[in-house]
């Protein structure tokens, strides 16, 4: 027992001396951030273009969305499935299908591109700011084109909701 204690003291002393000789020490800089604005900001919102073949509208240039988020919950995109004039007057129904939509820079968020909606959840994953890019593509199918006029512009609305 006496031998063990003696040996332990000797080892500890040696370690201490060794550390002193090498002279390694650590220093830190500490700091605390101020309050960042948490939430979501729409940075880009560009309308797309679609063309009609038979009863189906198909997106030829996607709508472009860029949304900056910091520590927020989720994003959803939905349509009311209505074809409108540029002035907003309802013309007929058009069932939207978002298949083909592309979401990039989601950085760990859950992206679900469903026919009737686009849902991006878990935006709090990871740290800091996310800048999510969405190319909103898809189709919209009408039952018929009886209500449409020739060479006339129409639009379909999409509501992009960021819940913070």
């Amino acid at each position: 027992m006496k031998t063990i204690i003696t040996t332990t003291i000797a080892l500890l002393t040696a370690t201490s001396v060794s550390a002193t000789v090498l002279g390694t020490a650590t220093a830190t800089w500490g700091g605390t951030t101020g309050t960042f604005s948490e939430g979501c900001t729409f940075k880009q919102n560009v309308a797309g273009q679609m063309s009609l073949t038979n009863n189906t509208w198909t997106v030829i240039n996607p709508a472009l969305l860029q949304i900056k988020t910091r520590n927020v919950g989720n994003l959803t995109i939905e349509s009311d499935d209505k074809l409108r004039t540029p002035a907003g007057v309802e013309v007929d129904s058009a069932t939207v299908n978002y298949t083909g939509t592309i979401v990039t820079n989601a950085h760990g968020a859950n992206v679900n591109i469903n026919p009737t909606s686009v849902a991006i959840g878990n935006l709090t994953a990871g740290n800091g700011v996310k800048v999510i890019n969405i190319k909103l593509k898809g189709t919209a199918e009408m039952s018929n084109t009886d209500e449409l006029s020739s060479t006339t512009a129409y639009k379909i609305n999409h509501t992009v909701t960021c819940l913070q």
Partner: protein
Amino acid sequence: MKFLVVAVMCILPTLASAHSMSPGFETEYAVSDTHSKTYTVKNDYNFPATYKVEVFNKDMTPATEWKAKKYTFKMKPNSKKEFELKFKSTETRKLIVCSTLTNIGYENEKASIISRVCSRLIINGVTRL
């Protein structure tokens, strides 16, 4: 007859810049039967935009028993606006307060890509001793 008509989803100016609202998620404690809460909307688009205020329940059904002085407001480019909402607060409420883009541009055109920023709000109802 097969025909092709190119239409725009929206004949609107390109929207580059921002729509945001603050504060985000907050929990508050009411001290009376009516609870007031102020939000700020920023219109950083380069042209005027009109927003409407909406309040929903947690399941996104329209909420009742709240009011605002104005339910829509037109904002200048690169501006911000505060709006105050009053909520009945006799019991705990879980709400979603939204600012929704409705019209844009100097011609006040209808928006087709409708940005909507929503903040969760929990109001703990007034406690009576």
